C-alpha cells in the first residue's frame, strides 16, 4: 500500500490461467482465487427479442446476500448485460467482456487477441487514446484490460456518479476503433517487451508455457496467450482489423456492472449507448477438446536458475462435468493452508520442497488441466520431489480422505468464496467468468456442489484422472551461472560499482 515500494510484478507461478494485462503492476489477479465455474459452452445464444430476463437466484445462506439480486437482460443486438447492485460504497465497476481470447487465434498469428487489446487504447474517431486515458484519470478512475485463452476484458472502476463516462467510452470503442499503422508498429514492440518480462526472463513461466504446449495438441491452449514471439512479429494491422471486425460485436460480448447504482436507471443509460450498435449474429461456440492422451509426456527446460521446479498436469473437465467440484475439493485437500497434505509432507515434513501447490480452474471454456507443482533447492533431486508428489496422488486413490479433512477443505473453499466477494472488481469478475464458460447463474451451484462432495467421489475422481498416461511432466533443470550458486544469496552475479 502506501509506503510499500511498488514494484512491477510478473504473474507468479501458481496462476496457470495466464492473463496478460495492458499495464503492469496490477496485482488484483493474485487476489482472485479460482472458484466456481461455468457450464454449457455449447448452449446456443438465442437471438433475443427486446426482453428482460430477470433471474433471481435462490437464497442461499452461504452466499450471503451477494448474488441474490443479480439480473440480466439482452438487447436486441445480442448484447447481454449483467447487473449486480452493491451499495457498500459509492463506486461502480463497469466491465466489457469479449469472447475473443487466444483460443480464437490461428497458427502463425498467435498473440493477436492480446495485441488487439493493447490497440483498444489507441483511440476512436471521437476520442483519442490520450483523451481516453486522461478522462478516466481526471475522474479518479481505475482502468485496465486483460486477455486470457478465452476472453478479453476491459474495465473501469469509478465513483458512482461518473459511470456515464464508462458507458460512453466503452460503447464508442466497441465499434469505432481507429487502427493506425504507426501506433500498431510501436505497440507490437511494447508487447514483445511484455513477453520478455513475463516469460522469456522468467524460468518458471517458460516452464509453464512449455508444459501447456506439450499437454495440449489440438486445443488452442497449446499456444501462450501472449503468443510466440515470431508470431507476434508476423501479425499485421490487417490481421488486427479483421479480428476486431469479427469478434468485437454486441452479440459476441457482454457487460457486467457491479456497484452503487439503480438497475432501472443504469439499464436505460446502457441501452441508449450500446443499443444502436449493430453487428452480425452471435458466432458459433465450440468446445475444442484434445483426444485422450495415450501416455505420459515429459518436457525438460534447461536454463540458468537458482531454483528447480517441477510441474505435472492432468487433463480434466471443466464445469460442464460435476467432477469439477470434486477436483476443486481435491485441490484444497492437497494444498490449501499449512495443514494441507503438500505443505505438511513435502514442505514441512520431509523438507523436499520450498513450495508445493495444486491448481485448478473450473472456468476454462475448453477442458483444462489440474496442475501440481513444487519448487526446490538445487540440492534436491527432481526424481525425489516427483515421487513424493505422485505418492500423494496415489494416496487419494487408495485411502479415503478422512471426513474431518474433507470438512476442512469444504470450509476453506466456502470461506474463500465469501472473502472474494469483498471487492467489486472480483464480484464482477466472478460473474463474468461464469458467463464466459456458460451462464453466470451457475455461481449459485458452487457452494451446494462443494458441500455435496463425498469421500467416495474423491477416490473415484482421483482414480479416473490422476493416471500416468493422462499427465504431462515438465522439469526445470537449473544450469549455467546458477550452478556456481554462491553461499550467500547476494552473490552469484557479477557486481561492480563504478563511480
Amino acid at each position, binding site marked *: *500500500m*502506501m*509506503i510499500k*515500494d*511498488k*514494484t*512491477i510484478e*510478473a504473474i507468479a507461478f501458481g496462476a496457470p490461467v495466464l492473463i496478460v494485462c495492458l499495464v503492469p503492476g496490477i496485482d488484483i489477479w493474485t*487476489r482472485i482465487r479460482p472458484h466456481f465455474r461455468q457450464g454449457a459452452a455449447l448452449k446456443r445464444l438465442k437471438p433475443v427479442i427486446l426482453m428482460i430476463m430477470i433471474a433471481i437466484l435462490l437464497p442461499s445462506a452461504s452466499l*450471503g446476500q*451477494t448474488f441474490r439480486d443479480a439480473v440480466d437482460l439482452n438487447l436486441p443486438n445480442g448484447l447481454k448485460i449483467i447487473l449486480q447492485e452493491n451499495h457498500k*460504497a*459509492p463506486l461502480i465497476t463497469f466491465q466489457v467482456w469479449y469472447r475473443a481470447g487466444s483460443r480464437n487465434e490461428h497458427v502463425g498469428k498467435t498473440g493477436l487477441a492480446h495485441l488487439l487489446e493493447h490497440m483498444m487504447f489507441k483511440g476512436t474517431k*471521437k476520442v483519442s487514446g490520450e483523451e481516453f*486515458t*486522461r*478522462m478516466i*484519470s*481526471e475522474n*479518479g478512475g481505475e482502468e485496465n484490460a486483460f486477455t486470457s485463452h478465452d476472453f478479453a476484458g476491459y474495465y473501469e472502476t469509478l*465513483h458512482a*456518479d*461518473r459511470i456515464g*463516462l464508462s458507458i*460512453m*467510452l466503452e460503447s*464508442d470503442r466497441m465499434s*469505432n476503433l481507429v487502427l493506425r499503422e504507426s501506433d500498431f*508498429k*510501436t505497440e507490437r*514492440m*511494447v508487447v514483445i*517487451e*511484455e513477453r520478455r518480462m513475463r516469460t*522469456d526472463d522468467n524460468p*518458471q513461466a517458460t516452464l509453464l508455457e512449455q508444459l501447456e504446449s506439450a499437454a495440449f495438441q489440438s486445443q488452442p491452449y497449446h499456444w501462450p496467450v501472449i503468443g510466440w514471439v515470431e508470431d507476434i512479429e508476423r501479425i499485421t494491422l490487417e490481421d488486427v482489423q479483421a479480428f476486431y471486425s469479427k469478434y468485437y460485436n454486441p452479440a459476441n460480448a457482454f457487460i457486467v456492472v457491479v456497484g452503487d447504482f439503480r438497475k432501472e436507471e443504469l439499464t436505460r443509460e446502457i441501452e*441508449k449507448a450500446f443499443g*444502436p450498435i*449493430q*453487428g452480425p449474429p452471435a458466432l458459433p461456440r465450440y468446445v475444442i477438446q484434445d483426444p485422450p492422451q495415450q501416455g505420459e509426456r515429459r518436457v525438460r527446460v534447461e536454463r*540458468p536458475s*537458482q531454483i528447480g521446479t517441477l510441474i505435472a498436469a492432468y487433463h480434466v473437465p471443466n464445469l460442464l462435468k460435476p467432477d469439477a467440484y470434486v477436483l476443486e475439493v481435491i485441490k484444497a485437500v492437497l494444498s*490449501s493452508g*499449512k*495443514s*494441507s497434505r503438500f505443505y505438511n509432507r513435502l514442505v514441512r515434513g520431509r523438507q523436499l520442497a520450498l513450495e508445493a501447490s495444486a491448481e485448478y480452474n473450473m472456468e476454462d471454456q475448453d477442458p483444462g488441466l489440474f496442475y501440481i507443482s513444487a519448487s526446490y533447492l538445487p540440492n534436491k533431486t527432481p526424481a525425489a520431489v516427483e515421487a513424493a508428489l505422485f505418492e500423494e496422488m496415489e494416496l487419494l486413490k487408495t485411502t479415503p480422505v478422512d471426513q474431518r479433512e474433507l470438512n*476442512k477443505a469444504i*470450509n476453506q*473453499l466456502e470461506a474463500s468464496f*465469501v*472473502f472474494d*466477494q*469483498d471487492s467489486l472488481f472480483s464480484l464482477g469478475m466472478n460473474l463474468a467468468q461464469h458467463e464466459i464458460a456458460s451462464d453466470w447463474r451457475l455461481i449459485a451451484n458452487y457452494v451446494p456442489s462443494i458441500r455435496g462432495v463425498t469421500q467416495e467421489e474423491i477416490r473415484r475422481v482421483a482414480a479416473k484422472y490422476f493416471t500416468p498416461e493422462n499427465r504431462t511432466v515438465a522439469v526445470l533443470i537449473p544450469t549455467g*551461472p546458477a550452478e556456481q550458486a554462491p553461499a*550467500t*544469496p547476494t552473490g552469484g*552475479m*557479477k*557486481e561492480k*560499482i563504478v563511480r
Partner: protein
Amino acid sequence: MPDKRADRKFLVGTLLLIISMVLPIGLSNAMPPVERSVLANKLTVLVFEDHSIPAVTIELLVAAGSWQDPRGLNGIANLTAKSILLGTRQLTFDQINDRLDFLGASLDADCTKDFANLTMQVLKKDLDAGFGLFMDVLTEPTFPDSDVAGEKGNIIGKLRSLEDQPMEVANRAFEKALFLDSPYAFPVEGTEKSLAGIDREALVKFYSAFYRPNNSILVVGGDITPEEVKGRLLPRLLDWKPADIQQMKLVPTFAREHVTVAVDKPVTQATIIIGGPGVERSNRDYYALSVMNHILGSGELNSRLAAQIRVKAGLAYAVQSVVAARKYAGSLRIIIQTKNPTARDTISMAISEMERMQREPVSEAELQEARKFLIGNFPLRYGSTQQEYAKFRAQIEFFGLGMDYPEKYSSLINSITAEDVLRVAREHLKPRDHVLTVVADQEKAGMK
C-alpha cells in the same frame, strides 16, 4: 461490418459536457468512518463497520520493522514476525494450522522495513475462535527450535528464488547502493549468513522488546460493531502487557554522487532503476512529490515517461516512477524494463524527462489532471477491500497523519501549485547524481 458503426457523436459530445460540469468528487462518503480508542495498556484500537460480507478483518501493525534489526542480526524482525505463527504455550504448529484451516480463516505475518503486520480474515460466525488464535500467536509464541530452523529454510529458499526475478535483484542492488550502510540498505529477509546467527534467545529478546500493545495499532473492521469489539475482544486485548520501548532513531545515509551498479545476468531484457534519496512519509513535500510523480511516471499511459518511452517509442512495457516514502527518508526512483540493446537509450530518455521536470513548471492541464486523479482515485487506492482499508488505516495512524487524513487529503493535494512541483523536482530529482542500477546482459546492454 460497414453498417455496425452507429453515429454516437452526440453521446460523446454530451459526455465531454458532463465531465466539465461535475463538481470535485467527495472522498469521505466512499470510506467507512473509523472509531478510535486507546486502551489502558496503550494499545490503539481502530474499528470500522462494513456489513456487506459476513467476514471480519483483524489487522495489527507492530512498530518492529527490519530497520530495527540489531547489527549483525539482519533479518530478525522478519524472522520474529514469521515465527510467532510457529507455536504457542498451548498449541503446536500443527494444532494452530489445523484449527485455522478448519475455520477457513487466513492468518499471515509479514514484515516491511518500517513495521510488522499480523493479518487475519475470518467468517463472522467463527470470530471468537479466530480471534482466540490471533491473540495466542501474538501474546504467547514459544519459538520452537526445529520450527524456527524450518522457517529460516523457507526464508533462504525465498532469497534464492528472488535471484531469478530481475526486478527483485535490481531493487535490492539499488537500495544497497543508495542507503549505504544505514538500516534501509539491508533486505528485510536478511542474508543466509545473518540468519544463521539468529538463535531462539535473540528472537525472544526482540519479540519482548517490541511486540507490546503500546508499540502497536490494531484495526478491526468488517461485519462487526464497536460494541461487539468492546464486549467480545476487549478482555483478551487488555491481558496483553505493555513495557517500556527502547527509543531508537534511524539516521539515513545516502549515496550523494553518481553510482552505477551493473548486475550481469543472462536475460533478454534490462531492468533499470534510476533514483536517489526521498522523503519521510510525514514530510510536507510528500504531496507535491505525489503530484510530480503522477505527471512524471504514475504508471498511467499518459504520464510523461510512459508517453515518451512506451507509447511513442515502443521501448518498454513497464515504465514508471515511484515515491517510496517511509518512516524515515526513503527513495525516489524510475523503473524501466527494456531489451538489452536499448538500455542506454531509455536511460537517456528518462534523464531528459527528469531535467525537463526541473527546468520548466508543469502545465496547468497536467497539474489539474494529477490533482483530480489523486483525489478522485483515493478511495479506490486504499479502500477497495476490508483488508486494504484496514492496512491503510493502520498506516495513517503509524505515520501520524491524523484521523481526519481522508477528509483533508483533497485540500493537501489541491493546495499544490506548479511552483511547488518545480521546487520539489529541483530538490529531489537527481538527473546526474543518482544511483543507476542495471540488471542485464551487460555486454548486450552496452554497459561494459
